[in-house]
């Protein structure tokens, strides 16, 4: 966000430190504001999911409407790992990421080079296929009921049964994902995918293997969704097909865009918070909260697709003076 940004080292920015500090403190005051610890865990999980998703949507411009498949695969993989391999967080999460990444790579091989509506519809189609598999493949997935009794293993002898403790494990992964993604965005790779979003054809004519880049972005984004899914399975203690449904896949799309994923790295983070606040605060008032949230999404796409972060940037841009020197210029013009 303009005005308070700026690198501390090459990897961590001032904004990141602030965000980390704020989020780190959540378990201390979340009960006091009338909410509950588990909500913090949920929000972190979906933040990770949305950040990875935004790599595909906001930065590369590809809308995946079936991303729940990878989230779900991560969840199932984690559960199955706990039940059949070994009860261990790191191995479980590792397997979750691996499974989701492989699934993502497989799908990406089919579709990552497709454009526009073909891409979007194929993501829906694959999402539905995975969902169908989750529902029908009883032996592996437990069918419609899903996997039950997924344990929360201890981490370095610390029990995670307490939601607060789980929060900090999720926070650990959140920090990793944020730092890694930030780095990726500001690397040559990140620059290239942004260029691809703007002008795929020209990127090709400059010499980039556009297809391969899109493949990699899709796969990475699926892997991160798998990480979130694994944490989700651990938090919920179960894994079930519903997370792969179109309905739920749509949630991450809406969150990411409303928050401002198109123009800001932190957009998805913001969007996730807004979504859960809407769910838990609005949701108490009315059963139709999701309907209103969806309508808000439509209005945002119509009038301000840059989302909340975009609005924030508009407000702060007028106050910040433009820097003329070449060295710091990339930051102000990059906007994220």
């Amino acid at each position, binding site marked *: 966000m303009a005005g308070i940004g700026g690198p501390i080292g090459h990897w961590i920015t001032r904004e990141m430190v602030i965000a980390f500090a704020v989020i780190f403190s959540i378990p201390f005051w979340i009960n006091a504001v009338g909410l509950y610890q588990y909500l913090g865990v949920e929000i972190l999980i979906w933040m990770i999911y949305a950040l990875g998703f935004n790599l595909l949507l906001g930065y590369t411009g590809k809308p995946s409407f079936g991303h729940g498949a990878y989230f779900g695969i991560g969840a199932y993989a984690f559960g199955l790992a706990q039940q059949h391999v070994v009860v261990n967080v790191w191995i479980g999460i590792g397997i979750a990421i691996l499974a989701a990444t492989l699934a993502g790579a497989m799908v990406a091989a089919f579709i990552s080079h497709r454009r526009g509506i073909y891409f979007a519809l194929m993501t829906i189609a694959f999402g539905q296929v995975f969902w169908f598999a989750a529902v029908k493949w009883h032996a592996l997935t437990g069918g419609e009921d899903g996997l039950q009794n997924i344990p929360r293993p201890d981490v370095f002898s610390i029990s995670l049964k307490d939601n607060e403790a789980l929060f900090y494990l999720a926070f650990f992964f959140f920090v990793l994902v944020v730092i890694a993604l930030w780095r990726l965005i500001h690397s*040559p790779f990140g*620059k290239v995918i942004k260029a691809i979003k703007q*002008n795929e*054809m020209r990127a090709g004519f400059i*010499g980039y293997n556009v297809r391969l880049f899109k493949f990699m972005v899709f796969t990475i984004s699926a892997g991160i969704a798998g990480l979130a899914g694994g944490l989700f399975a651990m938090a919920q203690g179960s894994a079930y097909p519903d997370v792969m449904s179109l309905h739920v896949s749509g949630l991450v799309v809406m969150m990411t865009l409303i928050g401002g994923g198109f123009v800001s790295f932190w957009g998805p983070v913001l969007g996730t918070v807004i979504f859960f606040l809407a769910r838990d605060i609005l949701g108490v008032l009315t059963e139709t909260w999701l309907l209103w949230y969806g309508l808000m999404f439509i209005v945002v796409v119509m009038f301000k697709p840059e989302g909340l972060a975009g609005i924030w940037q508009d407000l702060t841009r007028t106050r910040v003076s433009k820097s003329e020197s070449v060295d710091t210029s990339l930051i102000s*013009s*990059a906007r994220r």
Partner: protein
Amino acid sequence: MTVAPLFEARHIHKRFGDQVVLEEINLAFEEGELSGIMGPNGAGKTTCFNVLTGRYKPDRGQVIFAGEPITGLPPRVIAQKGVSRSFQLINLFDEYSALENVLIAVPQVRNRGFNMIRNIEQDTAAIDKAALVLERVGLKGKENEPSDQLSYGDRRALEIAVALATEPRILFLDEPTSGIGIEAMARLAELVQELKRTYTMIIIEHDMKFLFDLADRISVVHWGQVIAEGTPDELRANKWVKSSNLGKLV
């Protein structure tokens, strides 16, 4: 001892559906020269250009660059070999600044495209290179301007800058004077004159005067064929050129 031409097209045929657009096109471009391709609209010169730069695959024939056949290779492979082109319809990265547009094309970045760790905003070598290219095309001082807010003439210059930034062995310019005014035209002519000294260039152009002033050799494409070829002086004396509208302009 004669040196083989740097870039060649041999027996190129291309049809779209029923229509034969290019027929038995043979062209040769020497290294270090500025070669022009001209011809009326719809005559096939744009298609020819697109075949040479890999956008279309010819039905028959070969395209050869530095002795190596590149026919039918995807544009990105051809670009990696050192062939670069600009576009007639401005084809930039509109959300990027002028600098970023060029930066994405410089070899320091292009060769490290898959690097997910290096912080590009600290990469002074790459940034300096990009700034230099911008300076060369006359966009010094406008590095941080969002490219979609530059004037048309500046965008034309940026369009060429992006093609230039890849440090190609051969540079194709597709109607670089499209839509620009007289002042920008003079600037462009100067730029091309200056680029001539370092790059082998092939320019497709509508503006006869521009081409005749700058090109070493020109090929005239009409009715899908090369109907005349030679230095500007030779062409001025050419019967066909003289009798056509083209002759009256130069």
